[in-house]
């Protein structure tokens, strides 16, 4: 087994799942790992227990990956030809801006919940506490990257004279999702990132303006990177033996089942949640026939995430349901 099993972030094709890249290196090499391309640690539990990586080591890996992927909203915006945008382009930008408003409360919540979970596990299982701390620490990078997404789309919508987002909507979309079991939380966030990445990937195919297409491509690649992090943290919790694979499958089933969350705003009846806004419930493509669903691709990526998190191989939503039912028991 390698010292650091990592997952590189796809820079070009955001919807294709990346396979883990294994590295074999000793502690000294790890200390000099700036020479290696930055990557996500995909076997975090093993890294932090058997291989002895510290939180400082893990944070270094998180930081250099974040730093290597930084990009400028202002530079990206400068390359968009506002006059050339089609009505569909404008709708896609407007929806993306609204959707991205919900990520800040997600990241704020993750930071708070991971910190609380870290304290909860500190005495009974220090390895789990360390994983929670690594997750909470990473949430600052996630929040910063999502800030880029939110502002690039909303600034573009504003410059293009699109329907303004009222302060009431802004505040409503900032509502915080209620707390839940940490494994379920991480799997839900992984699936949310998959959904966003596939949607943005689909949008690229219908956008004509090169500058705008580049923005969607960059944001999709970021979302895939976030998915990889959530999968890594979720896998670490399952590997610790303190969290059960059934909960990962439960969340996947919630999305994949008939009339499930993956159907988003296309569902006949949406829940009146009252507590928070799920961005996928709020997409509004107006008079356009275009809907960036690609449900099969999402199903495939969700099954892939489940395999990485739990080690259990499934290929269809029916298999997800069957496996979940078996894991639940009676």
């Amino acid at each position, binding site marked *: 087994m390698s010292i650091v099993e990592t997952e590189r972030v796809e820079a070009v094709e955001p919807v294709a799942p990346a396979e883990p890249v294994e590295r074999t290196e000793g502690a000294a090499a790890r200390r000099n790992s700036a020479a290696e391309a930055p990557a996500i640690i995909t076997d975090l539990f093993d890294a932090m227990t058997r291989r002895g990586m510290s939180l400082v080591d893990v944070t270094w890996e998180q930081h250099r990956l974040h730093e290597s992927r930084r990009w400028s909203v202002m530079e990206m915006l400068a390359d968009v030809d506002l006059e050339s945008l089609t009505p569909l382009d404008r709708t896609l930008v407007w929806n993306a801006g609204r959707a991205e408003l919900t990520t800040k409360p997600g990241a704020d919540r993750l930071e708070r919940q991971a910190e609380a979970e870290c304290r909860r596990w500190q005495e009974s299982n220090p390895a789990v506490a360390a994983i929670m701390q690594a997750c909470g620490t990473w949430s600052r990078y996630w929040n910063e990257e999502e800030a880029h997404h939110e502002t690039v789309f909303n600034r573009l919508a504003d410059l293009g004279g699109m329907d303004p987002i009222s302060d009431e909507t802004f505040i409503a979309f900032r509502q915080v999702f209620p707390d839940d079991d940490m494994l379920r939380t991480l799997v839900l966030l992984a699936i949310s990132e998959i959904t966003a990445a596939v949607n943005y990937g689909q949008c690229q195919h219908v956008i004509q303006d090169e500058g705008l297409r580049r923005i969607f491509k960059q944001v999709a690649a970021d979302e895939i990177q976030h998915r990889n992090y959530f999968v890594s943290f979720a896998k670490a919790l399952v590997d610790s033996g303190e969290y059960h694979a059934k*909960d990962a499958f439960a969340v996947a089933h*919630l999305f994949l089942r008939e009339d499930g969350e993956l159907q988003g705003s296309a569902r006949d009846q949406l829940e009146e949640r009252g507590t928070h806004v799920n961005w996928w419930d709020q997409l509004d493509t107006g008079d356009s026939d275009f809907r960036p669903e690609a449900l099969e691709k999402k199903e495939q990526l969700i099954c892939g995430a489940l395999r990485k998190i739990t080690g259990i191989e499934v290929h269809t939503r029916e298999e997800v349901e069957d496996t979940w039912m078996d894991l639940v028991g009676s």
Partner: protein
Amino acid sequence: MVTPGVESYIRQKFAEHAGLSEDQLFVDDVTLAAVIGRSPRMTNSIDLMEAFARTANALRKDYGVRVRLPALPLDTPVSTVLKVFIEEFERQKKEAAA
């Protein structure tokens, strides 16, 4: 024709997995949102889904019939859920026998 005993079996199993009495669920005919609110074992709709899954698994074990429930909105009353459960049970039982 409903299989004798199956309705009370579903009521009992669902109440057990929700951590509530049958009266708390069925006398008031509460909604699924209220079930989550009242249950000491539920935080959100994933727990509710799991209580249905455990009930379905118990049915499969004791009656040999596999029931799959559709996604039901949280304002659905439990009487409707029970009806859907029984209809699905009878449909699956008939298909299995065909």
